[in-house]
């Protein structure tokens, strides 16, 4: 039988909580019925949804699935002129953003796929296609343990991103509740987590570091903590373990192009080196020229635009993530485009950030390159300290630790203490 969202008319099981409002599976099914009928009546083959409202995204997924239309899921952060360009290029006949915005367009044959986009912060977003079935299969494979049934998932990722859709589908598949805040702030996430008694929270390491500052662990009853979207570093994993000693902690590696590649449950950063020989779930991993390359059973089903992770001739997908084999572990060093070149020496920000995060009083750190006339670039770090922590002591501790552990060119030369570090809509450090 073909897999769909499986929303039953009249079902009063809650599916989405937004702030303090609830939407049942039946509510969303009824709205999807109307939408599906309208899409079919107008003969529209391609629909774009641009909203952070998860109830609307579910409605669009279900309606397009049953109408056989393609669905493009766009971030609310993509500029309007780019949305227009995407609509024109791909023959989109309906834009959903709280209202129905019908467009006259040349019809493009649909194959019932779901197209997701990269953030597009530096140019046109890249579009990758998936079948709903493969997305659901991945969501199904990701949940094997019984407590997950009927779980209550807090959605911290951008609702329109790959990770956000993955969490949403997981909640829908397992009869669970998807908890979304009225305001996508750390305080907002904490409020709805308590209000709806969230059991599963998945977020970026950046999200977790902020969340730990705000949340009182005794007020939450979490069964599962997941880190994704960025490489998880050891200090953050340790901090989470300390705050939530009885909760299972998992970190995952996934991307829009490849889907979920692996999940690690042992609380250690990176993944076991043994996985280079044989990885779980039919995934294959290898290191080529320092980069992680992957092969997964649920690989993207084709690009509509230039690939950010080019598919190699031999069927492997090249990632931009630099990794390092350290004993029996493979550690992720960070993305190539974040590499800092200091007088010809390469510096990966992630290990430097991890080292800074390990120091007393430090709650967040961002390491980046600063242009310099002498060496081309210098390593700079923005650091957030706990309230009351002494900057002078912290400065000394950070520099001493960095000097002991890192080559001279990797040591931050400019250390700025700041109140907060800007994060993107996807809760990643910019």
């Amino acid at each position, binding site marked *: 039988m073909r897999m769909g969202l499986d929303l039953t008319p009249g079902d009063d099981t809650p599916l989405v909580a937004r702030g303090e409002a609830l939407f049942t599976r039946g509510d969303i099914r009824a709205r999807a019925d109307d939408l599906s009928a309208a899409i079919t009546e107008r003969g529209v083959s391609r629909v774009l949804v641009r909203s952070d409202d998860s109830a609307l995204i579910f409605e669009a997924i279900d309606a397009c699935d049953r109408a056989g239309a393609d669905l493009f899921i766009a971030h609310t952060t993509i500029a309007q002129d780019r949305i227009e360009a995407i609509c024109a290029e791909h023959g989109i006949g309906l834009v959903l953003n709280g209202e129905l915005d019908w467009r006259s367009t040349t019809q493009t044959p649909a194959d019932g796929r779901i197209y997701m986009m990269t953030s597009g912060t530096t140019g046109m977003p890249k579009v990758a296609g998936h079948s709903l079935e493969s997305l659901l299969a991945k969501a199904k494979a990701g949940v094997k343990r019984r407590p997950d049934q009927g779980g209550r998932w807090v959605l911290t990722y951008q609702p329109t991103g790959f990770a956000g859709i993955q969490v949403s589908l997981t909640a829908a598949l397992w009869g669970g509740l998807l908890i979304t805040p009225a305001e996508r702030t750390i305080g907002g996430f904490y409020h709805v987590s308590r209000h709806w008694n969230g059991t599963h929270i998945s977020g970026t390491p950046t999200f977790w570091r902020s969340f730990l500052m705000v949340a009182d662990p005794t007020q939450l009853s979490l069964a599962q903590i997941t880190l994704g979207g960025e490489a998880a570093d050891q200090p953050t994993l340790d901090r989470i373990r300390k705050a939530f000693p009885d909760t299972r902690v998992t970190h995952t590696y996934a991307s829009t192009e490849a889907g979920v590649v692996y999940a690690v449950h042992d609380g250690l950063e990176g993944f076991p080196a043994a996985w280079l020989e044989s990885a779980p779930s039919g995934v294959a991993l290898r290191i080529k020229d320092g980069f992680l390359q992957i092969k997964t059973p649920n690989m993207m089903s084709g690009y509509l635009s230039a690939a950010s992770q080019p598919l190699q001739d031999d069927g492997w997908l090249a990632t931009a993530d630099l990794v390092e084999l350290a004993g029996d572990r493979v550690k992720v060093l960070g993305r190539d485009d974040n590499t800092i070149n200091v007088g010809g020496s390469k510096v990966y920000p992630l290990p430097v950030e991890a080292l800074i995060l390990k120091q007393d009083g430090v709650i967040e750190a961002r390491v980046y390159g600063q242009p310099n*006339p002498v060496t081309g670039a210098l390593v700079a770090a923005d650091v957030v300290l706990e309230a009351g922590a002494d900057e002078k002591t912290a400065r000394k501790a950070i520099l001493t630790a960095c000097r002991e552990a890192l080559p001279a060119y990797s040591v931050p030369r400019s250390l700025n203490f700041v109140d907060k570090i800007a994060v993107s809509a996807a809760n990643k450090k910019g």
Partner: protein
Amino acid sequence: MTEDQIYAAIVEIISQTLDDKGLDVPEITPATEVLGDELGIDSLDLATLVSELEKKIGFDPFAKGFIEFKTVGELTKLYVR
């Protein structure tokens, strides 16, 4: 900033750099060679010094390419406008 203020800023940053490295801070005069044996300053430290000075003084005399200099006094002059 006056030449004296710039000079004072350079001496302060060099002293801080040496202190950060756990080195003794010797007496610094306008004739002290920045990369000489007297100070334990390497090219990375120099890069740091230049970036700190840009922050403090608000411009970078090396913006169009590196300019040779030897002493603390010569470096000071590059920042005088």
